[in-house]
Protein backbone atom coordinates (compact mmCIF):
# COMPACT_ATOMS: atom_id res chain seq x y z
CA UNK A 1 0.00 0.00 0.00
CA UNK A 2 1.31 3.42 -0.88
CA UNK A 3 0.13 6.73 0.41
CA UNK A 4 1.35 10.14 -0.64
CA UNK A 5 2.38 12.31 2.25
CA UNK A 6 1.40 14.74 3.49
CA UNK A 7 -2.05 13.18 3.62
CA UNK A 8 -4.77 15.79 3.28
CA UNK A 9 -7.15 15.57 6.24
CA UNK A 10 -8.14 19.24 6.37
CA UNK A 11 -11.30 19.24 4.25
CA UNK A 12 -12.97 21.62 6.71
CA UNK A 13 -10.36 24.23 5.83
CA UNK A 14 -10.95 23.83 2.13
CA UNK A 15 -11.60 21.10 -0.41
CA UNK A 16 -9.97 20.49 -3.77
CA UNK A 17 -12.10 21.52 -6.73
CA UNK A 18 -13.68 18.35 -8.07
CA UNK A 19 -12.21 17.67 -11.56
CA UNK A 20 -15.76 17.54 -12.96
CA UNK A 21 -16.33 21.04 -11.56
CA UNK A 22 -13.07 22.40 -12.98
CA UNK A 23 -13.93 21.01 -16.40
CA UNK A 24 -17.26 22.76 -16.41
CA UNK A 25 -15.68 26.09 -15.36
CA UNK A 26 -12.96 26.34 -17.99
CA UNK A 27 -15.06 27.38 -21.04
CA UNK A 28 -16.42 30.30 -19.01
CA UNK A 29 -12.94 31.74 -18.56
CA UNK A 30 -11.79 31.72 -22.18
CA UNK A 31 -14.70 31.08 -24.52
CA UNK A 32 -17.92 32.26 -22.87
CA UNK A 33 -16.33 35.28 -21.24
CA UNK A 34 -19.27 37.64 -21.59
CA UNK A 35 -20.57 39.84 -18.81
CA UNK A 36 -23.84 38.30 -17.54
CA UNK A 37 -25.18 41.85 -17.21
CA UNK A 38 -24.69 42.55 -20.94
CA UNK A 39 -28.19 42.40 -22.35
CA UNK A 40 -27.44 43.42 -25.93
CA UNK A 41 -25.53 40.44 -27.34
CA UNK A 42 -25.12 36.69 -27.19
CA UNK A 43 -21.91 36.82 -25.14
CA UNK A 44 -23.90 38.30 -22.29
CA UNK A 45 -26.88 36.01 -22.82
CA UNK A 46 -24.70 32.89 -22.70
CA UNK A 47 -23.05 34.02 -19.47
CA UNK A 48 -26.38 35.01 -17.94
CA UNK A 49 -27.89 31.64 -18.78
CA UNK A 50 -24.95 29.85 -17.10
CA UNK A 51 -25.30 32.02 -14.00
CA UNK A 52 -29.02 31.28 -13.77
CA UNK A 53 -28.52 27.54 -14.24
CA UNK A 54 -25.98 27.62 -11.41
CA UNK A 55 -28.42 29.60 -9.25
CA UNK A 56 -31.00 26.86 -9.83
CA UNK A 57 -28.51 24.22 -8.69
CA UNK A 58 -27.60 26.08 -5.52
CA UNK A 59 -31.29 26.59 -4.77
CA UNK A 60 -32.08 22.92 -5.42
CA UNK A 61 -29.51 21.62 -2.94
CA UNK A 62 -31.18 23.58 -0.14
CA UNK A 63 -34.76 23.44 -1.51
CA UNK A 64 -35.11 27.19 -2.00
CA UNK A 65 -36.44 29.37 -4.80
CA UNK A 66 -33.61 30.48 -7.14
CA UNK A 67 -34.79 34.07 -6.66
CA UNK A 68 -33.77 33.72 -3.00
CA UNK A 69 -30.09 33.14 -3.87
CA UNK A 70 -27.70 36.13 -3.96
CA UNK A 71 -24.15 35.57 -5.24
CA UNK A 72 -21.29 36.76 -3.05
CA UNK A 73 -17.54 36.26 -2.85
CA UNK A 74 -17.83 33.61 -0.15
CA UNK A 75 -19.30 32.81 3.24
CA UNK A 76 -17.41 35.63 4.98
CA UNK A 77 -19.10 38.16 2.71
CA UNK A 78 -22.45 36.37 3.03
CA UNK A 79 -22.22 36.50 6.83
CA UNK A 80 -21.30 40.18 6.79
CA UNK A 81 -24.05 41.03 4.31
CA UNK A 82 -26.69 39.08 6.25
CA UNK A 83 -25.78 40.33 9.72
CA UNK A 84 -24.97 43.96 8.97
CA UNK A 85 -27.61 44.16 6.23
CA UNK A 86 -30.48 42.83 8.35
CA UNK A 87 -29.43 44.50 11.59
CA UNK A 88 -29.22 47.89 9.91
CA UNK A 89 -32.47 47.45 7.98
CA UNK A 90 -34.57 46.35 10.97
CA UNK A 91 -32.91 48.20 13.88
CA UNK A 92 -35.19 51.24 13.69
CA UNK A 93 -38.34 49.11 13.96
CA UNK A 94 -37.22 46.15 16.07
CA UNK A 95 -34.25 47.24 18.16
CA UNK A 96 -30.50 46.94 18.42
CA UNK A 97 -29.79 43.70 20.28
CA UNK A 98 -28.19 40.68 18.60
CA UNK A 99 -27.78 37.12 19.86
CA UNK A 100 -24.99 34.87 18.64
CA UNK A 101 -22.76 32.11 20.03
CA UNK A 102 -19.16 32.13 21.28
CA UNK A 103 -18.26 29.25 18.95
CA UNK A 104 -19.36 30.97 15.73
CA UNK A 105 -16.89 31.61 12.93
CA UNK A 106 -14.93 34.85 13.22
CA UNK A 107 -16.80 36.21 10.19
CA UNK A 108 -19.96 36.21 12.33
CA UNK A 109 -18.40 37.25 15.63
CA UNK A 110 -16.40 40.10 14.15
CA UNK A 111 -19.36 41.33 12.08
CA UNK A 112 -21.40 41.49 15.31
CA UNK A 113 -18.51 43.22 17.10
CA UNK A 114 -18.49 45.82 14.34
CA UNK A 115 -22.20 46.45 14.92
CA UNK A 116 -21.47 46.84 18.65
CA UNK A 117 -19.11 49.67 17.76
CA UNK A 118 -22.05 51.29 15.93
CA UNK A 119 -24.29 51.20 18.99
CA UNK A 120 -25.77 47.70 18.89
CA UNK A 121 -25.52 45.41 21.92
CA UNK A 122 -24.82 41.70 21.65
CA UNK A 123 -25.10 38.50 23.66
CA UNK A 124 -22.49 35.82 22.92
CA UNK A 125 -24.05 32.62 24.25
CA UNK A 126 -21.77 30.02 25.79
CA UNK A 127 -22.43 26.54 24.41
CA UNK A 128 -22.79 23.47 26.61
CA UNK A 129 -19.61 21.36 27.08
CA UNK A 130 -20.70 19.24 24.06
CA UNK A 131 -20.77 22.34 21.85
CA UNK A 132 -24.56 22.52 21.50
CA UNK A 133 -26.79 25.38 22.58
CA UNK A 134 -29.18 24.97 25.49
CA UNK A 135 -32.51 26.20 24.07
CA UNK A 136 -33.61 27.53 27.45
CA UNK A 137 -30.49 29.68 27.65
CA UNK A 138 -31.18 30.91 24.14
CA UNK A 139 -34.73 31.88 25.14
CA UNK A 140 -33.41 33.60 28.26
CA UNK A 141 -31.09 35.76 26.15
CA UNK A 142 -33.98 37.21 24.13
CA UNK A 143 -34.89 40.83 24.90
CA UNK A 144 -37.74 42.99 23.63
CA UNK A 145 -35.24 44.79 21.38
CA UNK A 146 -33.60 41.65 19.95
CA UNK A 147 -33.51 42.16 16.21
CA UNK A 148 -31.32 39.33 14.94
CA UNK A 149 -29.91 35.95 15.95
CA UNK A 150 -27.05 34.20 14.16
CA UNK A 151 -26.26 30.53 14.82
CA UNK A 152 -24.19 28.28 12.60
CA UNK A 153 -25.56 24.97 11.35
CA UNK A 154 -22.31 22.94 11.46
CA UNK A 155 -19.36 24.09 13.52
CA UNK A 156 -16.10 24.35 11.61
CA UNK A 157 -13.84 23.12 14.41
CA UNK A 158 -15.86 20.40 16.13
CA UNK A 159 -18.47 19.52 13.50
CA UNK A 160 -21.47 19.64 15.82
CA UNK A 161 -24.90 20.30 14.29
CA UNK A 162 -27.07 22.87 16.07
CA UNK A 163 -30.84 22.38 16.29
CA UNK A 164 -31.64 25.07 13.73
CA UNK A 165 -35.32 24.10 13.56
CA UNK A 166 -35.88 24.61 17.28
CA UNK A 167 -33.85 27.82 17.43
CA UNK A 168 -35.60 29.14 14.32
CA UNK A 169 -39.02 28.44 15.80
CA UNK A 170 -38.10 30.38 18.93
CA UNK A 171 -36.97 33.28 16.71
CA UNK A 172 -40.26 33.18 14.78
CA UNK A 173 -42.28 33.30 18.00
CA UNK A 174 -40.32 36.34 19.08
CA UNK A 175 -40.22 38.13 15.74
CA UNK A 176 -36.43 37.88 15.46
CA UNK A 177 -34.61 37.66 12.12
CA UNK A 178 -32.68 34.36 12.05
CA UNK A 179 -29.40 33.99 10.16
CA UNK A 180 -27.58 30.67 9.80
CA UNK A 181 -23.99 30.22 8.63
CA UNK A 182 -24.13 26.98 6.64
CA UNK A 183 -20.65 27.18 5.09
CA UNK A 184 -19.65 23.85 6.65
CA UNK A 185 -23.01 22.16 6.13
CA UNK A 186 -23.69 21.89 2.39
CA UNK A 187 -23.27 18.36 1.12
CA UNK A 188 -22.92 17.13 4.70
CA UNK A 189 -26.41 17.58 6.16
CA UNK A 190 -29.74 17.83 4.34
CA UNK A 191 -31.04 21.40 4.21
CA UNK A 192 -34.67 22.12 3.34
CA UNK A 193 -35.37 25.84 3.43
CA UNK A 194 -38.97 25.22 2.45
CA UNK A 195 -39.54 23.89 5.97
CA UNK A 196 -36.65 25.34 8.01
CA UNK A 197 -37.59 28.50 9.93
CA UNK A 198 -34.53 30.37 8.67
CA UNK A 199 -34.49 33.86 7.13
CA UNK A 200 -30.92 34.18 5.90
CA UNK A 201 -28.37 31.45 5.20
CA UNK A 202 -24.72 31.73 4.12
CA UNK A 203 -23.02 29.32 1.73
CA UNK A 204 -19.50 28.81 0.46
CA UNK A 205 -18.37 26.95 -2.67
CA UNK A 206 -14.89 25.88 -1.64
CA UNK A 207 -15.97 23.79 1.35
CA UNK A 208 -18.03 21.63 -1.04
CA UNK A 209 -15.53 20.91 -3.87
CA UNK A 210 -16.17 24.18 -5.67
CA UNK A 211 -13.74 27.04 -6.28
CA UNK A 212 -12.58 29.59 -3.72
CA UNK A 213 -13.83 33.14 -4.04
CA UNK A 214 -17.53 32.49 -4.52
CA UNK A 215 -20.44 31.96 -2.17
CA UNK A 216 -24.09 32.80 -1.82
CA UNK A 217 -26.58 34.23 0.60
CA UNK A 218 -30.12 32.88 0.85
CA UNK A 219 -32.60 35.70 1.50
CA UNK A 220 -36.15 34.49 2.24
CA UNK A 221 -38.97 35.82 0.05
CA UNK A 222 -41.99 34.51 1.99
CA UNK A 223 -42.17 36.25 4.38
CA UNK A 224 -39.92 38.71 2.63
CA UNK A 225 -36.69 39.56 4.41
CA UNK A 226 -34.96 42.84 3.58
CA UNK A 227 -31.28 43.63 3.92
CA UNK A 228 -29.30 46.80 3.35
CA UNK A 229 -26.64 46.40 0.67
CA UNK A 230 -23.07 46.56 1.95
CA UNK A 231 -21.55 46.88 -1.52
CA UNK A 232 -22.85 49.63 -3.77
CA UNK A 233 -22.58 49.93 -7.53
CA UNK A 234 -24.47 48.65 -10.53
CA UNK A 235 -27.38 47.25 -8.56
CA UNK A 236 -26.68 43.61 -9.39
CA UNK A 237 -28.41 40.79 -7.52
CA UNK A 238 -31.64 42.75 -7.00
CA UNK A 239 -29.67 45.59 -5.49
CA UNK A 240 -28.44 43.48 -2.60
CA UNK A 241 -24.90 42.93 -3.88
CA UNK A 242 -23.39 45.01 -6.67
CA UNK A 243 -20.40 43.87 -8.66
CA UNK A 244 -19.91 42.05 -11.97
CA UNK A 245 -20.73 38.39 -11.48
CA UNK A 246 -17.77 36.00 -11.67
CA UNK A 247 -19.37 33.66 -14.20
CA UNK A 248 -16.77 30.88 -14.08
CA UNK A 249 -16.74 30.83 -10.27
CA UNK A 250 -20.52 30.78 -10.16
CA UNK A 251 -20.66 27.96 -12.73
CA UNK A 252 -18.23 26.04 -10.51
CA UNK A 253 -20.35 26.56 -7.42
CA UNK A 254 -23.47 25.43 -9.27
CA UNK A 255 -21.81 22.25 -10.52
CA UNK A 256 -20.28 21.53 -7.11
CA UNK A 257 -23.67 21.89 -5.43
CA UNK A 258 -25.33 19.76 -8.13
CA UNK A 259 -22.83 16.96 -7.50
CA UNK A 260 -23.35 17.34 -3.75
CA UNK A 261 -27.11 16.95 -4.19
CA UNK A 262 -26.71 13.81 -6.30
CA UNK A 263 -23.92 12.15 -4.32
CA UNK A 264 -24.06 13.31 -0.71
CA UNK A 265 -26.15 10.43 0.53
CA UNK A 266 -23.75 7.67 -0.59
CA UNK A 267 -20.65 9.80 -0.05
CA UNK A 268 -21.53 10.53 3.56
CA UNK A 269 -22.01 6.83 4.33
CA UNK A 270 -18.45 6.15 3.17
CA UNK A 271 -17.10 9.15 5.10
CA UNK A 272 -18.89 7.92 8.22
CA UNK A 273 -17.27 4.51 7.76
CA UNK A 274 -13.82 6.12 7.50
CA UNK A 275 -14.50 8.40 10.49
CA UNK A 276 -15.51 5.43 12.63
CA UNK A 277 -12.38 3.58 11.55
CA UNK A 278 -10.23 6.59 12.48
CA UNK A 279 -12.00 7.03 15.81
CA UNK A 280 -11.70 3.39 16.86
CA UNK A 281 -8.02 3.41 15.87
CA UNK A 282 -7.25 6.55 17.84
CA UNK A 283 -9.27 5.43 20.84
CA UNK A 284 -6.73 2.64 21.31
CA UNK A 285 -4.43 5.41 22.56
CA UNK A 286 -4.87 6.19 26.29
CA UNK A 287 -6.08 9.56 27.50
CA UNK A 288 -7.69 10.89 24.34
CA UNK A 289 -10.76 13.10 24.47
CA UNK A 290 -13.20 13.77 21.65
CA UNK A 291 -14.23 17.43 21.51
CA UNK A 292 -17.88 18.08 20.71
CA UNK A 293 -20.99 15.94 20.73
CA UNK A 294 -20.60 12.62 18.89
CA UNK A 295 -24.23 12.08 17.86
CA UNK A 296 -25.20 15.59 16.72
CA UNK A 297 -22.20 15.81 14.43
CA UNK A 298 -21.24 15.55 10.78
CA UNK A 299 -19.23 12.41 9.98
CA UNK A 300 -16.54 14.51 8.28
CA UNK A 301 -15.11 15.91 11.50
CA UNK A 302 -13.13 14.31 14.30
CA UNK A 303 -11.61 16.69 16.83
CA UNK A 304 -9.50 14.98 19.47
CA UNK A 305 -7.31 16.15 22.35
CA UNK A 306 -4.28 14.08 23.31
CA UNK A 307 -3.60 14.57 27.01
CA UNK A 308 -0.05 15.04 28.41
CA UNK A 309 1.35 16.07 25.02
CA UNK A 310 2.25 19.69 24.31
CA UNK A 311 0.55 21.31 21.33
CA UNK A 312 3.46 22.73 19.38
CA UNK A 313 5.56 19.58 19.62
CA UNK A 314 2.48 17.65 18.49
CA UNK A 315 2.21 19.80 15.36
CA UNK A 316 5.91 19.17 14.64
CA UNK A 317 5.34 15.45 15.09
CA UNK A 318 2.45 15.10 12.65
CA UNK A 319 3.89 16.91 9.66
CA UNK A 320 3.13 13.91 7.42
CA UNK A 321 -0.58 14.63 7.72
CA UNK A 322 -2.22 17.95 6.84
CA UNK A 323 -4.53 18.68 9.77
CA UNK A 324 -5.58 21.67 11.83
CA UNK A 325 -4.51 22.18 15.40
CA UNK A 326 -6.29 23.68 18.38
CA UNK A 327 -3.33 25.95 18.75
CA UNK A 328 -3.11 28.94 16.51
CA UNK A 329 0.50 30.01 16.22
CA UNK A 330 0.65 33.72 16.77
CA UNK A 331 3.87 35.66 16.56
CA UNK A 332 4.62 35.47 20.26
CA UNK A 333 2.95 32.36 21.60
CA UNK A 334 0.42 29.62 21.05
CA UNK A 335 -3.18 30.66 21.48
CA UNK A 336 -5.58 27.88 22.38
CA UNK A 337 -8.65 27.57 20.17
CA UNK A 338 -11.44 29.92 21.31
CA UNK A 339 -13.99 27.28 20.31
CA UNK A 340 -12.50 24.62 22.58
CA UNK A 341 -12.09 27.16 25.38
CA UNK A 342 -15.79 27.99 25.05
CA UNK A 343 -16.56 24.29 25.65
CA UNK A 344 -14.67 24.58 28.93
CA UNK A 345 -11.61 22.63 27.83
CA UNK A 346 -8.42 23.46 29.75
CA UNK A 347 -5.66 25.32 27.93
CA UNK A 348 -3.57 22.14 27.90
CA UNK A 349 -6.27 20.02 26.27
CA UNK A 350 -7.21 22.79 23.86
CA UNK A 351 -3.57 23.14 22.80
CA UNK A 352 -3.08 19.42 22.25
CA UNK A 353 -6.12 18.98 20.01
CA UNK A 354 -6.16 18.01 16.37
CA UNK A 355 -9.01 18.43 13.92
CA UNK A 356 -9.09 15.61 11.40
CA UNK A 357 -11.52 16.38 8.58
CA UNK A 358 -12.31 13.69 6.06
CA UNK A 359 -13.59 14.21 2.54
CA UNK A 360 -14.44 12.91 -0.90
CA UNK A 361 -10.92 11.76 -1.78
CA UNK A 362 -9.88 10.25 1.57
CA UNK A 363 -9.02 6.54 1.36
CA UNK A 364 -8.92 3.74 3.88
CA UNK A 365 -5.13 3.64 3.41
CA UNK A 366 -4.95 7.32 4.39
CA UNK A 367 -6.87 6.56 7.58
CA UNK A 368 -4.75 3.53 8.48
CA UNK A 369 -1.53 5.48 7.89
CA UNK A 370 -2.85 8.28 10.10
CA UNK A 371 -3.75 5.92 12.93
CA UNK A 372 -0.30 4.30 12.86
CA UNK A 373 1.42 7.70 12.70
CA UNK A 374 -0.56 9.09 15.63
CA UNK A 375 0.06 6.01 17.77
CA UNK A 376 3.80 6.21 17.15
CA UNK A 377 4.17 9.96 17.63
CA UNK A 378 1.94 10.23 20.69
CA UNK A 379 3.83 7.33 22.22
CA UNK A 380 7.15 9.02 21.54
CA UNK A 381 6.09 12.40 22.92
CA UNK A 382 4.64 10.78 26.04
CA UNK A 383 7.88 8.85 26.53
CA UNK A 384 9.42 12.33 26.74
CA UNK A 385 6.71 13.82 28.93
CA UNK A 386 7.24 14.16 32.70
CA UNK A 387 3.49 14.75 33.00
CA UNK A 388 2.73 11.38 31.44
CA UNK A 389 5.20 9.73 33.85
CA UNK A 390 3.51 11.42 36.81
CA UNK A 391 0.11 10.38 35.48
CA UNK A 392 1.28 6.74 35.27
CA UNK A 393 2.57 7.04 38.86
CA UNK A 394 -0.94 8.01 39.92
CA UNK A 395 -0.12 11.65 40.69
CA UNK A 396 -3.02 14.10 40.33
CA UNK A 397 -1.48 16.87 38.26
CA UNK A 398 -4.08 19.41 39.37
CA UNK A 399 -2.76 19.05 42.95
CA UNK A 400 0.88 19.68 42.08
CA UNK A 401 2.37 23.05 42.99
CA UNK A 402 3.97 24.18 39.76
CA UNK A 403 6.58 26.87 39.48
CA UNK A 404 4.84 29.16 37.03
CA UNK A 405 7.14 31.19 34.81
Amino acid at each position, binding site marked *: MTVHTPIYLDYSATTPVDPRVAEKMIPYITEHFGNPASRSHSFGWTAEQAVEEARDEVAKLVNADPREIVWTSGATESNNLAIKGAANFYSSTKGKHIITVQTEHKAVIDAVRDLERQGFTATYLAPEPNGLIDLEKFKAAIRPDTVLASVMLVNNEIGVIQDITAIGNICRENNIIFHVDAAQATGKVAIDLETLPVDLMSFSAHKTYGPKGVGALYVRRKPRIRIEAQMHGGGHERGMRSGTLATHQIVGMGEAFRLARLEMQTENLEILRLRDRLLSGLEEIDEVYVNGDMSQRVPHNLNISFN*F*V*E*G*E*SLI*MAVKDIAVSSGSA*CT*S*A*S*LEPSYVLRALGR*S*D*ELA*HSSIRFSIGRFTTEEDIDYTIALMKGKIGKLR*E*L*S*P*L*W*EMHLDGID*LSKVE*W*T*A*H
Partner: protein
Amino acid sequence: MAYSDKVLDHYENPRNVGTLDKNDPNVGTGMVGAPACGDVMKLQIKVNDSGIIEDAKFKTYGCGSAIASSSLVTEWLKGKTLDQAAEIKNSAIAEELALPPVKIHCSVLAEDAIKAAVADLKSKQPA
Protein backbone atom coordinates in the same frame (compact mmCIF):
# COMPACT_ATOMS: atom_id res chain seq x y z
CA MET B 1 7.70 28.37 12.56
CA ALA B 2 11.21 27.61 11.39
CA TYR B 3 13.46 25.60 13.65
CA SER B 4 17.23 25.38 13.39
CA ASP B 5 18.76 22.09 12.30
CA LYS B 6 20.15 21.58 15.79
CA VAL B 7 16.71 21.95 17.37
CA LEU B 8 15.25 19.54 14.85
CA ASP B 9 18.06 17.04 15.49
CA HIS B 10 17.49 17.09 19.28
CA TYR B 11 13.72 16.93 18.75
CA GLU B 12 13.96 13.95 16.39
CA ASN B 13 16.71 12.19 18.36
CA PRO B 14 16.55 13.40 21.93
CA ARG B 15 19.58 12.43 24.03
CA ASN B 16 19.40 10.95 27.51
CA VAL B 17 15.65 10.62 27.87
CA GLY B 18 14.73 8.81 31.03
CA THR B 19 14.46 8.75 34.76
CA LEU B 20 16.96 8.18 37.57
CA ASP B 21 16.00 6.99 41.06
CA LYS B 22 15.09 10.22 42.80
CA ASN B 23 15.64 8.60 46.23
CA ASP B 24 19.27 7.80 45.45
CA PRO B 25 21.43 10.16 47.59
CA ASN B 26 23.69 10.73 44.59
CA VAL B 27 20.80 11.87 42.37
CA GLY B 28 19.50 15.42 42.19
CA THR B 29 16.13 16.18 40.60
CA GLY B 30 14.94 19.52 39.27
CA MET B 31 11.41 20.04 37.97
CA VAL B 32 10.49 23.46 36.64
CA GLY B 33 7.69 25.04 34.64
CA ALA B 34 3.94 24.48 34.65
CA PRO B 35 1.55 22.66 32.32
CA ALA B 36 -0.60 25.76 31.90
CA CYS B 37 2.45 27.65 30.59
CA GLY B 38 3.13 24.91 28.07
CA ASP B 39 6.49 23.75 29.46
CA VAL B 40 7.51 21.35 32.21
CA MET B 41 11.11 20.15 32.41
CA LYS B 42 12.38 17.42 34.67
CA LEU B 43 16.15 17.18 34.82
CA GLN B 44 18.09 14.64 36.90
CA ILE B 45 21.82 14.41 37.53
CA LYS B 46 23.85 11.68 39.21
CA VAL B 47 27.29 12.34 40.71
CA ASN B 48 30.03 9.82 41.44
CA ASP B 49 32.07 9.74 44.64
CA SER B 50 34.42 12.44 43.35
CA GLY B 51 31.52 14.83 42.84
CA ILE B 52 31.58 14.61 39.04
CA ILE B 53 28.28 14.34 37.14
CA GLU B 54 28.41 10.91 35.54
CA ASP B 55 24.84 10.71 34.26
CA ALA B 56 22.04 13.10 33.33
CA LYS B 57 18.50 12.34 32.22
CA PHE B 58 15.55 14.49 31.23
CA LYS B 59 11.89 14.44 30.40
CA THR B 60 10.22 17.50 28.92
CA TYR B 61 6.65 18.45 28.15
CA GLY B 62 6.97 21.38 25.80
CA CYS B 63 7.67 22.66 22.34
CA GLY B 64 10.52 21.50 20.14
CA SER B 65 12.84 24.19 21.53
CA ALA B 66 12.13 23.15 25.12
CA ILE B 67 12.83 19.51 24.27
CA ALA B 68 16.03 20.47 22.46
CA SER B 69 17.22 22.77 25.29
CA SER B 70 16.87 20.05 27.90
CA SER B 71 18.34 17.36 25.64
CA LEU B 72 21.36 19.58 24.97
CA VAL B 73 22.09 20.32 28.64
CA THR B 74 22.09 16.62 29.52
CA GLU B 75 25.01 16.29 27.10
CA TRP B 76 26.80 19.31 28.52
CA LEU B 77 26.35 18.26 32.15
CA LYS B 78 28.17 14.96 31.96
CA GLY B 79 31.73 15.20 33.27
CA LYS B 80 31.16 18.52 35.04
CA THR B 81 31.37 19.27 38.77
CA LEU B 82 28.28 20.71 40.45
CA ASP B 83 29.87 24.17 40.52
CA GLN B 84 30.68 23.96 36.81
CA ALA B 85 27.13 22.79 36.11
CA ALA B 86 25.67 25.76 37.95
CA GLU B 87 27.67 28.06 35.68
CA ILE B 88 25.84 26.97 32.49
CA LYS B 89 24.03 30.06 31.23
CA ASN B 90 20.83 30.19 29.23
CA SER B 91 22.52 32.45 26.68
CA ALA B 92 24.95 29.65 25.80
CA ILE B 93 22.05 27.22 25.28
CA ALA B 94 20.14 29.74 23.15
CA GLU B 95 23.25 30.45 21.08
CA GLU B 96 24.10 26.78 20.51
CA LEU B 97 20.54 26.00 19.34
CA ALA B 98 20.05 29.32 17.49
CA LEU B 99 16.78 29.89 19.33
CA PRO B 100 14.62 32.75 18.05
CA PRO B 101 13.69 35.49 20.56
CA VAL B 102 10.24 33.98 21.30
CA LYS B 103 11.92 30.74 22.37
CA ILE B 104 14.54 32.21 24.71
CA HIS B 105 12.36 31.25 27.67
CA CYS B 106 13.03 27.59 26.82
CA SER B 107 16.73 28.09 27.47
CA VAL B 108 15.95 30.01 30.68
CA LEU B 109 13.86 27.07 31.82
CA ALA B 110 16.73 24.67 31.11
CA GLU B 111 19.09 26.81 33.19
CA ASP B 112 16.52 26.87 36.00
CA ALA B 113 16.22 23.08 35.79
CA ILE B 114 19.99 22.67 36.21
CA LYS B 115 20.01 24.99 39.23
CA ALA B 116 17.07 23.13 40.77
CA ALA B 117 18.72 19.72 40.25
CA VAL B 118 22.02 20.93 41.72
CA ALA B 119 20.24 22.47 44.74
CA ASP B 120 18.29 19.25 45.30
CA LEU B 121 21.47 17.20 45.20
CA LYS B 122 23.35 19.55 47.55
CA SER B 123 20.50 19.39 50.05
CA LYS B 124 20.86 15.58 50.10
CA GLN B 125 24.62 15.49 50.53
CA PRO B 126 26.20 15.67 54.03
CA ALA B 127 27.71 19.08 54.56
